[in-house]
């Protein structure tokens, strides 16, 4: 398969964005001046990671891409030595990330890597649970460090204690140091993120692969169902809301809690009630850590957490109070899910006629079940908890930059690369120490304005799904998972794009996320803020969902998302609730309007708009 030449795609610069390359790390550029690198780039296969990056990256948010660029590649290539593949290389065009697995081409070299991989990865698979317990300790310590990190403003005069305690350091130095610590903690957290992930994916992918060999027509959702019902902490935040709803009813504060959409007003009303304090204490207790859950994927600074927007968890609690009052159970049907999982697994097993196949199936299923909790749980620790705290610490840094006139608004900080922020902080602290004006007050604001324009133009551009030359096989687990999802999605999405006028589209295709067919009225929710508008029995149409959207599922009868595969949150939750889901449709939130009548077929992945 041949795709456009990367350098040709890059050369067609969008007018008005000339010089955009300076917004991102230099090694992310496709080059023409270095013949050797140019040749390598041309002969490699690059595909757009649309699953993680539906939008062009802000310069600062590139931090997580760099973090996983390092982490994934090092674990693959330098720590475990995955035999046929080194790392995953990264490039960027117009703010969109392209990735490319780097194969080991020499057969003898692959062979020589096998024993290392067997020993090293084998150690992890064998001791998975014990190592995962260690991981949790490391991760929680890292998050604690992050939470304790102080970003203090620069005082006109240092506190007297600096003198009395002979500290010998200034707040200026602390700002520089703490910013470095903040960034380093982020990078460290992503080191841990990939410690288990690729091994987990490999176990998962090849279990799926083997099951599909046995049953060519088996839907992926059925394979994932065999691993469902395992306790994962991603349900915990939602469980906390349910508990708070029950407690509100038990303490008789439910009317006050349900009385207003605005948390501040609710809090004031609850405080006045005799048992209000008890409920508010429970609410505060639940917030840490469980409200550190992002309303998006957590990958971007724009994804705010429940703690940032308490109205969102409040609306969830209100939904559950309504259910309790109506006499409806709000508990997750865990037992039913497990019973169905066991039934499905047993029935498929019974269809395997060959002894060797049966043994292999059991081996791989066992392994997939072992890795599953990590594959899910790391998301809460890294993308949700750590990131939610991290973005806010960065906002504290931004507030200082704003105070010193380097940026106009706090949210402007994301237009700077993290090393540019470091430079700007040096500019600030030296000027602060010296008592002069930082140079950046003149240079950064216009640069940021220009970058805003560039980003806007990037958003209008549609990134080609793949560039370069495709190999016959892909051997890198993460890429297999990602490309499997991306490739099919992009093909389906392209057909919608070709259709032109979104008002004329009546059919959308996505992944069959959860089986069943229903018809109903659409409610488009672009953010978690919108889910409080959901009415009972509507079909939720969202860019993607995350655990923070969980209360929405108590109201809806089907779910449709733009982004995600059969393992995405929406698909998993819908399977648990037994309602249809079509995920990864690419354009649903653009094509479908609130109030349209939809027919959602979660078994085949088709959505029909009946209008």
């Amino acid at each position: 398969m041949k795709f456009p030449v990367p350098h040709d795609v890059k050369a067609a610069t969008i007018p008005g964005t000339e010089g955009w390359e300076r917004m991102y790390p230099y090694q992310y550029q496709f080059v023409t001046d270095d013949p050797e690198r140019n040749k390598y780039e041309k002969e490699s296969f690059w595909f757009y990671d649309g699953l993680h990056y539906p939008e062009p990256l802000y310069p600062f948010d590139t931090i997580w891409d760099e973090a996983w660029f390092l982490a994934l590649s090092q674990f693959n290539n330098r720590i475990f030595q995955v035999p046929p593949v080194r790392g995953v290389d990264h490039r960027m065009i117009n703010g969109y990330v392209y990735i490319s697995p780097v194969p080991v081409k020499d057969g003898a070299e692959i062979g020589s890597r096998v024993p290392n991989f067997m020993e090293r990865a084998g150690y992890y698979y064998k001791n998975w649970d014990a190592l995962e317990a260690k991981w949790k300790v490391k991760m929680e310590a890292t998050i604690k460090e992050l939470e304790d990190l102080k970003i203090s403003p620069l005082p006109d005069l240092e506190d007297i204690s600096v003198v009395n305690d002979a500290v010998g350091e200034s707040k200026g130095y602390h700002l520089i140091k703490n910013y470095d610590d903040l960034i380093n903690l982020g990078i460290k957290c992503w080191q841990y993120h990939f410690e288990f992930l690729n091994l987990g994916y490999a176990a998962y992918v090849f279990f799926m692969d083997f099951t599909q060999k046995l049953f060519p027509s088996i839907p992926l959702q059925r394979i994932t169902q065999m691993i469902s019902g395992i306790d994962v902490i991603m349900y915990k935040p939602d469980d906390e809301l349910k508990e708070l709803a029950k407690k509100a009813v038990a303490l008789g504060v439910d009317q006050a809690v349900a009385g207003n959409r605005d948390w501040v007003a609710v809090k004031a009303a609850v405080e006045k009630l005799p048992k209000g304090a008890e409920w508010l204490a429970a609410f505060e207790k639940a917030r840490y850590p469980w409200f550190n859950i992002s309303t998006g994927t957590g990958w971007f600074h724009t994804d705010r957490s429940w703690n940032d927007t308490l109205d969102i968890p409040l609306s969830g609690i209100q939904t559950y109070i309504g259910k309790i009052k109506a006499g409806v159970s709000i508990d997750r049907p865990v037992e039913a899910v497990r019973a169905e999982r066991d039934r499905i697994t047993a029935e498929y097993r019974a269809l395997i006629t060959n002894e060797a196949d049966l043994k292999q199936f059991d081996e791989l299923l066992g392994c997939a079940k072992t890795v599953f909790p990590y594959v899910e749980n790391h998301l809460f620790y890294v993308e949700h908890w750590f990131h939610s705290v991290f973005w806010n610490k960065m906002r504290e840094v931004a507030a200082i930059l704003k105070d010193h006139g380097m940026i106009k608004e706090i949210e402007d900080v994301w237009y700077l690369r993290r090393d540019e922020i470091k430079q700007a902080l040096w500019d600030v602290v030296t000027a602060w120490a010296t008592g002069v004006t930082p140079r950046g007050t003149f240079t950064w604001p216009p640069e940021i304005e220009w970058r805003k324009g560039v980003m806007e133009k990037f958003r209008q551009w549609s990134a080609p799904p793949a560039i370069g030359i495709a190999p016959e096989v892909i051997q890198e687990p993460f890429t297999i998972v990602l490309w499997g999802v991306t490739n099919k999605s992009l093909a389906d999405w392209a057909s919608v794009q070709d259709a032109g006028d979104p008002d004329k589209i009546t059919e959308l295709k996505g992944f069959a996320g959860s089986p069943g067919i229903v018809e109903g009225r659409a409610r488009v929710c672009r953010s978690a803020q919108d889910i409080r508008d959901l009415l009972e029995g509507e079909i939720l149409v969202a860019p993607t969902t995350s655990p923070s959207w969980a209360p929405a599922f108590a109201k809806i009868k089907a779910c449709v998302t733009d982004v995600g595969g059969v393992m995405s949150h929406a698909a998993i939750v819908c399977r648990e609730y037994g309602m249809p889901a079509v995920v990864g449709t690419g354009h649903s939130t653009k094509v479908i309007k609130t109030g349209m009548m939809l027919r959602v077929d979660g078994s085949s992945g088709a959505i029909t708009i009946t209008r």
Partner: protein
Amino acid sequence: MGNAMPLVCWFEEVNKDSVPLVGGKCSSLGELINAGVRVPPGFALTTHGYAQFMRDAGIQSEVNGLLDGLDHQDMDKLEDASRTIREMIESRPISIELEDLIAESYRKLSVRSCIPAVPVAVRSSATAEDLPGASFAGQQDTYLWVRGVDSVMHHVRRCISSLYTGRAIAYRMKMGFPHEQVAISVGIQKMANSFTAGVMFTIHPTNGDRSVIVIDSNFGFGESVVSGEVTPDHFVVNKVALDILERTISNKTVAYTVDRKEQKSIATEVPFERQNVQSIIDDEITELAWMGKQIEKHYGRPMDIEWAIDKDLPAGGNIFILQARPETIWSDKPKAPATSAATSAMDYIVSSLIAGKRLS
């Protein structure tokens, strides 16, 4: 059964071991009924009944005489003889005893069905499935929408005479199989007044996947699907979860229905506005697949099933199984294992990583 050598018996009185008595088709229907599967009721003229018919008609020696000295390769002469023999069989009256038995059973069937002169399908049911001639005859002779005793008698005779098609005669001669030893049974079964009918495989016919059930359907009687006259609607159902994985709605131009005036089955054009309409509703697909799953479970192997949905009966009791036989194409093939030898998960992962995944 009270009588060890009954001439006529109800389907529910037989089972899969009754092939020598009622042939493959009828015994399989009896087996299904006894397994709790919804099958339209009916009865069979047994092989004893057939023998009695031949004796009463006193034609076996005549038949043998006609065939004596013929060359099994001389098809022209065989066809001539076949025509004479079949006319003979079809014209000779059935003995009063046999006629009374068949007529009484038919009357009882009408009473059971709450339909006077209930429309039935009359089919030959061969006893020797391994005799291609016999099974050839069996496949050929199906008469739909037969009503009234006289017509039933007539079609029973036609089914019997199908033992003497030119090809069946030639085959027996070639194999040295005496004509007087062959036997046939005839099934007389209430017609489902089918709105929709078709076939169902409890295995994927193209890739042998045992986790799916594949259903083909068209409006009217199943004959249009069985004979391949139309491209039917096509559904792939997950056998484990019973949800519909694939649906292909075809342009269906022809269907077999009853001509109410003539009281017989005819091919008609499907009204234009219905040609591209799904011919079976989703709930029925699910129920049908569930029935297929039960039948497979009963037989312990993938099955090839004919079914119909009766338009006169309410949902929940209107899907009928007309025929079920073991699927042979995939089931008889030794299935290649997906793994050469079971290994630890770790070894499997390493070898799979090295093999890689094909880009598609």
